[in-house]
């Protein structure tokens, strides 16, 4: 046997670090409209190449092209634009509120608004999302009140979660939004379990699991794929690849598989990649995957290729690990600008109306913020009671907790 020499250890590195020139030349972007749209009952073995491509609808001229186009009316597109703009405006105000000391923590969606806003519109009432911390568009696009979100962020006296949970870890069964944990990947297998339960109960509702690129490395991600594949659970397995897991570039979690979508192939799960900054493409692919689930065809894995323009959270400064201008160089552009340009191209929207809408939305967000702040912020005004701290640990408070509550004087 030939001598292979010393073993060498390999640690992947991103293309560029701070001080360098952003370079996405290695990211292959297929032309909009170039990826075919198979029937939902396609044999997964025949569409394996879709795990390595990117489904896109909006081209650079603002036109919707190809087999995945044409599913949404102008009204629906205008509503989608409004949802994304609302989320961005909401984020900006809450990020500022965190900087003003009104809450401890915040996480924004900048650049990723299309993913959760468009996905929500492909679901039916009763379907259940198991989100991670960057899918608030699921709530915004489903009409969940912004004031309730802000009350939760402020942990104030009107907080639906009674001050028990970190800001932005919302919960709303009514709006198909499972309680966010803050732990990573745990929700992925729970979503599969929920979907299994729906199938066991001969229901028609489906589940959607959400995870980021970095957390796909957790074992719960792999457990979820095994269970989803084995039981053909009616679940859509979403992976939001925003390129960065705090400071860690996606290559650390992805390893040698080429794409995150490719993770699904070994499980026989149809696996698609989609332009996450293209509202129309996200919605079309979501609809396809949801229909597969609803028709008992089993799980679908969808990788949304996007870019986290903002910091990971209010506690993070990305300039320490990536070039400042990297987001400007991101080849898939900005989801709001792209949908806006499409609507202008369709002559149902104008720059002027867009500016007007921005102002109106900001006014709505500020009004909601004022209302929320009338119930208090983290360190000022009304807050949940100490008694609230002791409740809800169990359905019925056991004796040892009752004793401790008495010791605390409540």
């Amino acid at each position, binding site marked *: 046997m030939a001598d292979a020499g010393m073993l060498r250890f390999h640690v992947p590195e991103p293309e560029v670090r701070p001080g360098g020139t952003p370079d996405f030349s290695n990211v292959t972007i297929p032309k909009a409209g170039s990826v075919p749209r198979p029937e939902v009952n396609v044999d997964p073995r025949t569409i394996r190449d879709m795990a390595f491509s990117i489904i896109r609808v909006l081209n650079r001229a603002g036109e919707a092209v190809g087999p995945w186009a044409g599913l949404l009316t102008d009204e629906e597109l205008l509503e989608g634009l409004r949802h994304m703009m609302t989320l961005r405006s909401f984020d900006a105000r809450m990020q500022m509120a965190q900087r003003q000391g009104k809450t401890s923590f915040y996480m924004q969606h900048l650049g990723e608004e299309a993913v959760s806003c468009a996905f929500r519109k492909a679901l039916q009432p009763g379907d*259940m999302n198991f989100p991670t911390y960057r899918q608030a568009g699921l709530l915004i696009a489903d009409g969940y009140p912004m004031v309730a979100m802000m009350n939760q962020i402020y942990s104030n006296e009107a907080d639906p979660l009674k001050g028990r949970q970190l800001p932005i870890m919302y919960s709303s069964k009514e709006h198909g939004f499972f*309680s966010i944990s803050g732990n990573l990947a*745990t929700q992925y297998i*729970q979503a599969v379990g*929920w979907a299994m*339960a729906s199938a066991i109960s001969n229901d028609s509702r489906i589940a959607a699991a959400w995870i980021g690129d970095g957390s796909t490395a957790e074992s*719960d991600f792999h*457990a979820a794929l095994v269970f989803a594949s084995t039981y053909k659970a009616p679940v859509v397995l979403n992976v939001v690849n925003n390129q960065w897991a705090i400071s860690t570039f996606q290559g650390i979690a992805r390893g040698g598989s080429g794409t995150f979508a490719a993770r699904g192939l070994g499980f026989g799960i149809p696996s698609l990649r989609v332009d996450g900054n293209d509202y129309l493409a996200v919605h079309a692919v979501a609809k396809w995957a949801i229909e597969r689930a609803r028709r008992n065809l089993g799980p679908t894995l969808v990788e949304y290729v996007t870019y986290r323009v903002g910091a990971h959270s209010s506690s993070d400064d990305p300039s320490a690990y990536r070039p400042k201008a990297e987001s400007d160089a991101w080849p898939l552009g900005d989801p709001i600008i792209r949908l806006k340009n499409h609507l202008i191209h369709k002559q149902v929207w104008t720059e002027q109306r867009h500016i007007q809408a921005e102002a109106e939305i900001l006014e709505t967000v500020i009004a909601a913020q004022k209302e929320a702040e009338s119930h208090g912020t983290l360190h000022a005004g009304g807050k949940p009671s100490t008694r609230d701290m002791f409740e809800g*640990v169990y359905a*019925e408070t056991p004796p040892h907790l009752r004793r401790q509550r008495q010791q605390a004087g409540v």
Partner: protein
Amino acid sequence: MPRRTMIEAIRDAMDVSMARDERVIVYGEDVGFFGGVFRCTQGLQAKYGKNRCFDAPISESGIVGSAIGMAAYGLRPCVEVQFADYVYPAYDQIVSEAARLRYRSNNDFTCPIVVRMPTGGGIFGGQTHSQSPEALFTHVSGLKTVVPSNPHDAKGLLIAAIEDPDPVIFLEPKRLYNGPFDGHHDNPVTPWSKHELGEVADGHYTIPLGKAAIRRQGSAVTVLAYGTMVYVAQAAAAETGIDAEIIDLRTLLPLDLDAIVASVKKTGRCVVVHEATLTSGFGAELAALVQENCFYHLEAPVARVAGWDTPYPHAQEWEYFPGPARVGRALVETMEA
């Protein structure tokens, strides 16, 4: 009344629960067609179909994580982890998810699941088939932890656990599956058919979580025990002739503190016994509670008898296991103190 083994009693509890409530789903590794490596689920798939009882992949976090999702949907999963020693991959799901779901969502989502697992040693199972991890669960807010010691209790407690609105860790002392084992490993096993607590009523009944049982009335010293150690303590009392009051805790959390305090105030002495390793074991909590609540009634220090602080060994099983001789010594020393 029919006599059953603990395995049969546990199976009967699931059978009764599945018949009464179609939301009850049973699954785990080898649980479906085969009926479990200890046969606790034998026949359930044939009776209730593959929708209600099925085999799971070897992924404890997957089993518990999917059960949490099912509970959030509205089902009542009762899942099996093949050995308590294998529960650690599911620990994150149990601690960070099942235990906290109600709290963090303010009752928006709840988690009525049961995680069953065989616990304890005495079968030459070595490090990976002998552990007693109950303290890892009693330390977690939001969980209930149950350890039955006989077929009658096992059935009533398991039905109560399945009907409970919160997550329950149900630890089954595997050395008790086929008979009350008192630690005298050289003696032939007494079958449950010869023991009065092997009497298991047909149909539905529950034993409330959080209620202890006095297994032996006594006036000299209180022994706090659960699972296999209940019988070891009984043997130790008989062999030393000490009039011990033996309390079978049955549920570790919620704990029946009233029963403990009443007994220790009466006897003035207390020995805590468990199979799990000593340091930071549940016995530490029991000893602390006894001194907090009964200090001025105590005539001797609270003693603890537990597994040594080593991994569970293979060849040295009976040197490790806190058998009747060690418990007996603690009783004598506590009486002499």
